[in-house]
């Protein structure tokens, strides 16, 4: 080989090595260390004696660390509860840290065996509850404890609040905020035009026609929130088909998306899309920007969402909008559940890791949060009810949305339902894809059904995914 060739060869190698060096970050992104697995000793600081004032035996003058998802509700409500704990358990010190990257931030701490004492595992980057269920404390003793006013906590809560946080019989998470899912609209706009919120899908389609006459749309959506329409569809289908539909979806049954009630709802939605009642362009619009087109520009009449919507859009809602919620439309007159039936669930799952240094302290914060003072503070500042009953006065602190939530909840009575399979198996990300395509008219109801089924089947057939059986 001539020297020139040699020279090129060496340079080539150097450049290759350099390219390799750039390829490495891709690998190390996936290769976080599992080294330093901590000892198994749990609740090392537990040592205080248990009493009604200190039901979990939080050690005297101990420190507690809480990591709270800093989203629509902020984190100051936990700071408020932390203040209560510091007052009740004299000498203790509670630190509350906000985070928007729960999974990324806490993953190494779970692996290292030193997780914080209390986590609000919420938001787009929440840890799949199923993934860490084995490493969490059973929180049923929090519900069994007495609150700061001396009443047993369980007796102060709405019924069914433990359902979303129960995995295979163990209460691993306490969902703090009572969320009502509904179709939200501007009561003032509806009143001015003599419209009423649709009680059936046929009425919805008619309303779409009326909206179009006024150059408005019936619905709109944003790309990250396309699955809000899935939530709407499932709720409406469960009202139609009852537990049969709910359990088929929850247990990822084959052809669960082809059940007649689900198909009926999807077909109605398909008509809405085809008639042009859906504001085009949602697939390229950031979701809060899209929501502002509804709450501020009033480009569309209805928006399906959870009750966090009022707080989320607070600064971008038109004056005198009078945000009000209505239950999801029914499909047929022979539906198994009445129109007033409501999709409502407790949200914002708080978990206490078993390996936390001061698990008792974490539970103590929860106890403070579930007491009257902190729960009322939350309802008042966030305009959302917690799972604690009776914290919202009749006038809803002057909020029409909060007032309508109370009306919907009392109208529903015991016909309140929810489901968890989307969150438990972390399917939302995959489901966004067909929903965006469906809402923008790229695929029809049949195409949507096929893609949703294949996402569901993929999880159902994946032996490495632990299944949660719902009965």
């Amino acid at each position, binding site marked *: 080989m001539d020297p020139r060739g040699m020279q090129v060869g060496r340079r080539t190698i150097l450049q290759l090595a350099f390219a390799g060096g*750039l390829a490495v970050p891709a690998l190390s992104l996936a290769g976080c260390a599992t080294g330093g697995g901590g000892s198994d000793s749990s609740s090392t600081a537990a040592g205080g004696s248990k009493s009604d004032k200190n039901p979990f035996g939080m050690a005297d003058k101990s420190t507690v660390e809480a990591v709270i998802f800093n989203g629509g509700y902020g984190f100051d409500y936990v700071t408020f509860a932390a203040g209560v704990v510091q007052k009740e358990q004299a000498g203790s010190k509670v630190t509350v840290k906000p985070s928007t990257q729960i999974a990324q931030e806490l993953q190494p701490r779970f692996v290292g065996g030193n997780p914080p004492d209390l986590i609000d595992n919420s938001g787009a980057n929440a840890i799949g509850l199923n993934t860490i269920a084995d490493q969490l404390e059973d929180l049923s003793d929090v519900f069994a404890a007495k609150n700061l006013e001396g009443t047993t906590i369980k007796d102060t809560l709405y019924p069914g609040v433990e359902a979303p946080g129960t995995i295979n019989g163990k209460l691993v998470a306490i969902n703090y905020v009572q969320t009502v899912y509904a179709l939200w609209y501007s009561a003032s706009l509806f009143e001015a035009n003599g419209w009423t919120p649709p009680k059936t899908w046929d009425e919805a389609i008619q309303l779409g026609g009326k909206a179009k006459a006024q150059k408005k749309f019936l619905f709109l959506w944003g790309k990250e929130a396309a699955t809000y329409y899935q939530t709407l569809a499932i709720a409406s289908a469960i009202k139609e088909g009852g537990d049969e539909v709910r359990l088929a979806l929850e247990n990822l049954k084959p052809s669960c998306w082809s059940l007649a009630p689900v198909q009926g709802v999807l077909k109605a939605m398909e008509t809405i899309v085809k008639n042009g009642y859906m504001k085009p362009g949602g697939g390229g619009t950031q979701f809060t920007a899209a929501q502002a087109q509804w709450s501020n520009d009033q480009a569309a009449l209805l928006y399906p969402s959870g009750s966090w919507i009022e707080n989320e859009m607070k600064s971008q809602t038109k004056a005198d909008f009078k945000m009000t919620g209505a239950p999801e439309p029914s499909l047929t007159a022979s539906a198994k559940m009445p129109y007033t039936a409501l999709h409502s669930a407790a949200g914002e799952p708080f978990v206490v890791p078993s390996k936390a240094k001061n698990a008792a302290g974490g539970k103590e914060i929860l106890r403070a949060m579930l007491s009257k003072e902190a729960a009322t503070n939350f309802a008042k500042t966030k305009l959302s009810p917690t799972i604690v009953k009776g914290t919202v006065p009749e006038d809803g602190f002057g909020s029409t949305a909060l007032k309508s939530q109370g009306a919907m909840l009392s109208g529903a009575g015991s016909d309140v339902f929810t489901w968890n399979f989307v969150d438990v198996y972390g399917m939302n990300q995959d489901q966004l894809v067909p929903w965006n395509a469906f809402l923008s008219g790229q695929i029809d109801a049949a195409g949507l059904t096929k893609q949703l089924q294949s996402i569901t089947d993929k999880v159902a057939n994946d032996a490495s995914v632990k299944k949660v059986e719902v009965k």
Partner: protein
Amino acid sequence: MTAVVPSMTDVVAPPSGSSRFKRPRRRRMSRARIVFILITLGLPFAFYSLFVLWPFVQAFIYSLTNWGGFSDTFEFVGLANYKALLHDDIFLKAVRNNLLLALVVPFVTIVLSLALATMVTVGGSSTGAVRGLDRSSLYRIVSFFPYTIPAIVIGLIWSQMFDPSSGLVNGLLTGIGLDRFESFAWLGEVSTAMPVTMFVIIWGFVGFYMVLFIAAIKGIPSELYDAARVDGAGRVRMTMMVTLPMVRDTIQTAYIYLGILALDAFVYMAALNASGGPQNSTLTMTQDLFNTAFKKGQFGLASAMGVFLAATTLTFAAVVFTINRLTRGRDR
């Protein structure tokens, strides 16, 4: 460091033996020299091993396990993760998207930046000395501008520009009477999402590579251009016959840089279409890896994706080198 003082005595050669064939003379290394080597080579290598090679090995090991990411326990499952990847239609879609990016983005960026570089260096008036266009320094500054903006900001700016209802792009298009762009979701339609994404990446990089090529072209002796011009070559011919062969190595380097960027592209995708775009048409391997690890809690599978991505990147570099070798020919 006090130890790094060259001591001359140690450089003296040891007494030579009587043998006719002397062994290569071997200097005994002084303490200072050892310390010097340890600091300049050993320390970086230690860091490199700890923070680069070890994670590399770790990722490979995890890729053979079913580690969920949130505990310190896992089982080895052999190559099951890799098998799962080969049957994972979403991941395969991401691989195809990445390959498309790696084909188009470097090519278009290099063609455009080379054209611009040529214009501002040798594309000017064809009388007098070889020079660029008038006011070329202004063009140079203007086109370098996007590179001074961080990638995430570029992504966010353009996602607002392409906003269907209030974006500038649709505003301009509907403003000149093209009503079909009313609420047109550039980033939400399968047919436009990927081209628009590529456009944004290319927009961000053309200026930088233009500057790179300007430097390379400035390094070419101007006699070559003068001679070519005397021989009657026009601008295009000069570019093809003089500029291109002379900046070949720079193009190769640029191609590899851009290819690696295209195989990653995470930042741009996160800003433009964080959820993978319509029908996953802009989903990249890095995004799928991220979702699999943090949203689905399957770190073993995600590590396998990382290993696959690294292998793809290395293969890409090897392909570029091979093509460059083959087309250069062996005659020189």
